[in-house]
C-alpha cells in the first residue's frame, strides 16, 4: 500500500490498514469464533462478512456521531462522567444493529439466516466491532471512523473468504456449492469439520506472520 496517497493517516491509509496491516483476524486476532464456525462455505462467509460489516458501519456511525455531539455539548467534567458508562452504551448500540440485521436477514434471506444460525446474534460479542467502536470511533470524526469501519469489515470478510475457500475446496471439492474437481476427487471431510478449521486458521496465521517477519516488521504476537 503506497503511503504516497495521504499516508497511513490519509483516507486510503485509514481504509487499507484494515485489510492488510491490521487485518482483524490474522493480525489483531479478534472475532475468531464466527470466523471458524461460518467459514464452511464461501457463500456463508460472504453472508457473515456482509452482516458484520453492516453492523460495524452502523455502530461506528452512531458511536462517532453520538460521542462527537456529547463531547461538543457536554462540559468536560460531565463528559468524563459519561466516559464511565461508554461501554454499556456501545453494547446497546451494537446490539440494536445486530437485531436489525437479524430481522432483515430473517425476512429477505431466510436460507442464509438458517445456515448462520446462532452466529448472527453472536456478532454482538464479536470483539472487532466493540474494539473499533472503543479504540477508534469514539475518538475520531464520523468520516474517518466510517472509512476505518469499512476497511475493517472488508478485512474481516476477505479473511473469512480466504479461510472458507480453502476449507470448501479441500473439504467438499466445491466452490460456491458447485463441484470443482469432478467426480474422481475424494474430499478431505475433516476440513469441513472443526479440526480442519482450527488447523487451517493456524497455518494461515503463521503464513501472514512469516510474510511480515521477512519484511522486518516484528511479529506482534
Amino acid at each position, binding site marked *: 500500500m503506497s503511503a504516497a496517497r495521504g499516508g497511513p493517516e490519509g483516507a486510503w491509509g485509514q481504509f487499507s490498514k484494515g485489510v492488510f496491516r491490521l487485518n482483524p483476524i490474522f493480525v489483531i*486476532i*479478534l*472475532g*475468531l*469464533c*464466527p470466523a*471458524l*464456525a461460518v467459514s464452511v462455505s464461501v457463500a456463508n462467509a460472504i453472508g457473515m462478512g456482509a452482516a458484520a460489516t453492516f453492523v460495524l458501519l452502523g455502530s461506528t456511525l452512531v458511536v462517532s456521531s453520538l460521542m462527537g455531539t456529547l463531547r461538543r455539548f457536554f462540559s468536560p467534567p460531565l463528559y468524563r462522567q459519561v466516559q464511565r458508562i461508554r461501554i*454499556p452504551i456501545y*453494547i*446497546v448500540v451494537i*446490539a*440494536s444493529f*445486530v*437485531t436489525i440485521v*437479524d*430481522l432483515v436477514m430473517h425476512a429477505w434471506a431466510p436460507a442464509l439466516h438458517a445456515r448462520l*444460525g*446462532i452466529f448472527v*446474534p*453472536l456478532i*454482538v*460479542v*464479536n*470483539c472487532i466491532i*466493540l474494539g473499533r467502536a472503543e479504540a477508534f470511533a469514539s475518538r475520531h470524526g464520523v468520516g474517518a471512523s466510517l472509512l476505518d469501519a469499512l476497511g475493517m469489515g472488508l478485512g474481516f470478510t476477505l479473511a473469512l473468504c480466504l479461510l472458507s475457500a480453502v476449507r470448501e475446496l479441500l473439504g467438499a471439492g466445491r466452490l460456491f456449492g458447485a463441484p470443482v474437481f469432478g467426480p474422481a476427487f475424494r474430499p478431505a471431510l*475433516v476440513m469441513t*469439520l*472443526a*479440526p*480442519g*478449521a*482450527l*488447523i487451517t*486458521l*493456524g*497455518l494461515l*496465521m*503463521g*503464513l501472514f*506472520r*512469516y510474510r511480515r*517477519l521477512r519484511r522486518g516488521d516484528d*511479529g506482534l*504476537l
Partner: protein
Amino acid sequence: MDFFELLMIFVGVVLVHNFIFSRFLGLCPYVGVSERIPSAMGMGMAVIFVMTMSSVITWAVYEWVLVPCGITYLYIIAFILVIASFVQLVEMFLQKSVPALYRALGIYLPLITTNCAVLGVATLNRQEFFGTPGSLLKCVVQGFGGGVGFMLAMVIMAGIRERLDLADVPEALKGIPIALITAGLISMAFLGFSGLSF
C-alpha cells in the same frame, strides 16, 4: 423431566459438542488465557459460574419479561444487557467482600462478558429448549455443562502450551498459530466422542 435426558444433554455439551472444539464459542479468551494451568483453572471456574447463572437469568428474562410483552425479537439486546450487568455486579461484589476469591476467580469476570460462549449458550438455550417442558432445568444443565467443557478444554490446552514453549516451533508459528493448530489436533481427538450415545 427424567434424569437420563439431562445426563444426555450434559455429556453432549461437555464431550460431543464441546463449546471450544466443535462449536467454536469462547475462542478469544481461550487463545489468550490458556498459557498456564492455574490461570486456566481460574478462568474455567469463573466461566462455569457465569454460564450457569446466566442460563438461569436469561431464561427468566425471556419467559417472564419478553414473552408476556410479546417482544421476543429483542432477545439479543436483553440477553447481552442482562449478562453484562450480572457479570459486572458479581465482579464488584467479589472485589469488595471476598478479595481472595476475587484474585483467584474474579479477575477473569470482565473477560467473560465479551466471551462468545456465554451469549452463545443463552442463544442455544433459546433455540433448543425455550418453550419445551422443563426448559429451565435443561438450560441450567446446558449452561453448567458448557462451562465444564470450556474448563476441560482450557486445562488440556494449558497443560500442552506449558510444554510448547520448550519445543522449538518455527519462528512464524510461535504463540497463537501453534496454539490453534494444537487445538485443532485436540478437537480431532474430541471427534472420537461423536459416536457417543447410550
